[in-house]
């Protein structure tokens, strides 16, 4: 049993998988001698050489397209997007190409490809180094979108990403990279996609949260427990496709649901989760389905007070939980 941070979990698992499968290679900006700007690929070029750890030109469209082509050829590429905000130039290649290849070829061509992207705010990154991009891509059938929040899940889901024959958008919360530490068993395991996890059991209400927000939600749940409010916390982990069953089961038990994310509210992932609940758990609901997200502004502002205002935090989550519990 090792104690790892989220980013150590990424690096270690990449190395482990590359040792196992010679068809895995990594490309992206500065992934080579620099080891990535977050250092997620630290040490990999030293172990695997520059054939398998390839500094790309500064061009996301083609980072993904090269990955797609190589995947069609039979490799299992990992494309690192330096910041999730910079995945946008590759949108067409991801959505129209990577995600549609299996379908458009009736299953004859597949694109086993892992696209890693550090996302999320709260680190003073301003409009373009803080974005949450999950909802945009979770809308795309054929593309797995995952957002593991703990080292255990990072390891298990990254391993699993190499065991599916489909493209995976692997989201890594950059503030959680070094903030979050946790136990990772020595034994081999995977965390299959499409399975949510109850990260805390409770009876009064359900909070659904992922990424950094999961940890803040657990903190808030802990706080209100003192006042006898019992919160069940569900981490979807896989954002597309969603594990409806686990979510619905929880809400049917508690009768109340709050979804938390740091993406802006409108058409954030909370919209889909709320809609599923309002449709399939309606008869069990004792309160309105609540969402807590960032305000509908273009992105996270840089200046500290505005950033704080933008970001959901444990206080805001606590407040929302208390409000829902009191309903």
């Amino acid at each position, binding site marked *: 049993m090792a104690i790892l941070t989220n980013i150590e979990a990424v690096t270690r698992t990449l190395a482990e998988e590359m040792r196992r499968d010679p068809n895995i290679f990594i490309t992206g900006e500065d992934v080579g001698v620099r080891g990535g700007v977050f250092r997620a690929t630290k040490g990999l070029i030293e172990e695997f050489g520059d054939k398998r750890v390839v500094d790309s030109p500064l061009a996301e469209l083609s980072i993904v397209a090269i990955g797609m082509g190589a995947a069609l050829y039979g490799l299992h590429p990992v494309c690192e997007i330096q910041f999730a905000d910079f995945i946008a130039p590759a949108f*067409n290649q991801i959505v129209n190409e990577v995600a549609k290849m299996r379908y458009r070829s009736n299953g004859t061509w597949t694109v086993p490809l892992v696209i890693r992207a550090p996302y999320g705010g709260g680190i003073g990154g301003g409009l373009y180094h803080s974005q949450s991009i999950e909802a945009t891509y979770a809308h795309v059938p054929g593309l797995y979108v995952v957002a593991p929040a703990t080292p255990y899940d990072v390891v298990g889901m990254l391993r699993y990403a190499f*065991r599916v024959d489909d493209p995976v958008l692997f989201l890594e919360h950059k503030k959680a990279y070094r903030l979050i530490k946790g136990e990772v068993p020595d034994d081999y395991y995977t965390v299959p996609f499409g399975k949510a996890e109850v990260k805390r059991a409770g009876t009064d209400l359900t909070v659904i949260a992922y990424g950094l927000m999961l940890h803040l939600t657990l903190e808030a749940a802990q706080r209100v427990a003192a006042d006898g409010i019992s919160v069940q916390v569900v981490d979807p982990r896989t954002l597309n496709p969603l594990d409806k069953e686990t979510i619905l089961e929880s809400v049917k038990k508690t009768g109340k649901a709050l979804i938390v994310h740091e993406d802006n509210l409108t058409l954030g992932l909370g919209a889909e989760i709320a809609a599923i609940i309002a449709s399939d758990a309606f008869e069990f609901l004792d309160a309105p389905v609540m969402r807590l997200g960032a305000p509908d502004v273009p992105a996270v502002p840089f200046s500290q007070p505005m950033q704080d205002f933008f970001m959901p935090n444990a206080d805001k989550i606590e407040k929302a939980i208390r409000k829902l519990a009191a309903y």
Partner: protein
Amino acid sequence: MAVSKVAEQTAAKVDARHRALDLTDAQALEMYWYILLSRRLDERMWILHRQHEVAFHISGIGHEGTQVGAAFALKRGYDFVHPYYRDMALSLTIGMTPRDLMLALYGKQGEPSSGARQMPAHYGSRALKIVSGSSPVATQIPQAAGIAFGIRYKGTDQVALTCFGEGSTSEGDFHEGLNWAGIYKLPVIFLCQNNQYAISVPTDKEMPVKNVADRAVAYGLPGVIVDGNDPLEVYRVMREAVARARRGEGATLVEAKTYRPVPHSSDDDDRTYRSREEVEAWKKKDPVLRMRQYLESVGLMDDAKAQEYEARAKEAVDDANQFGKNAPFPPPEAALENVWGESRK
């Protein structure tokens, strides 16, 4: 007697261009066959559209010389091809059948490229290493570089060929794909079929240079211009590019100058943007005509043989037409299949 005359001429023309290119007589005739087959199949599709039998057709007419010349430079089924919607003759030459293409036209069950999910002319076959294309133009360009990246990674002597129109070179995808190919000396051939128009937009509104090939220098690549209506010339240039790629010397940008003598698609009316004189002038350089004339000139073709080829082509097209027309539609629920795969483990 027609036959004996052919034999005689053949003997006389040992310096025939195709032989200088190491193509056998049979191969030269096979080239003609695919050019002709594609043309006749394509023409039938236009007719079916006019008869309201099918809703849409997008044509490769005029481009067959380029495509067949290119296909012959490849090891078919070994090298990768990432085509675009005009590549009917290319796809046929690599190994797709008229039946395959008629299934696509009618949107029928068993259509091999996409299970009839895509519009016609989205060629694809895993077995033949023809990558299933999309409709957004130019996306295949960096993907083909990616395939070549895979080839280089694995160290085989395969190559990847991708095709696109000159209009599509305005997209960022073109730039990024060629940049990778240049940096990593990837075994990929970028074959631009420059037919002078992107739908209605003429080349001088698409790009500020005369030739697409002029852009190769920006990527440290050779840029080669070839008469796209001369299949043997295309073959010659492509053979060099392929050899270069196999030797590990990297990519080539080939620009085949050609023309689309028909509208962009069955939805288009080309009279709004170009003169009939221009179209007629280009029809004189038609690749079917040119290849036939060439074969005649080297004694491999005469009227009788030409009629024989026409009859064979008609038969193949008739058969495919019937086959496509009579095939059942896919079941509606097939729309739900092949979104996700099974996990491998």
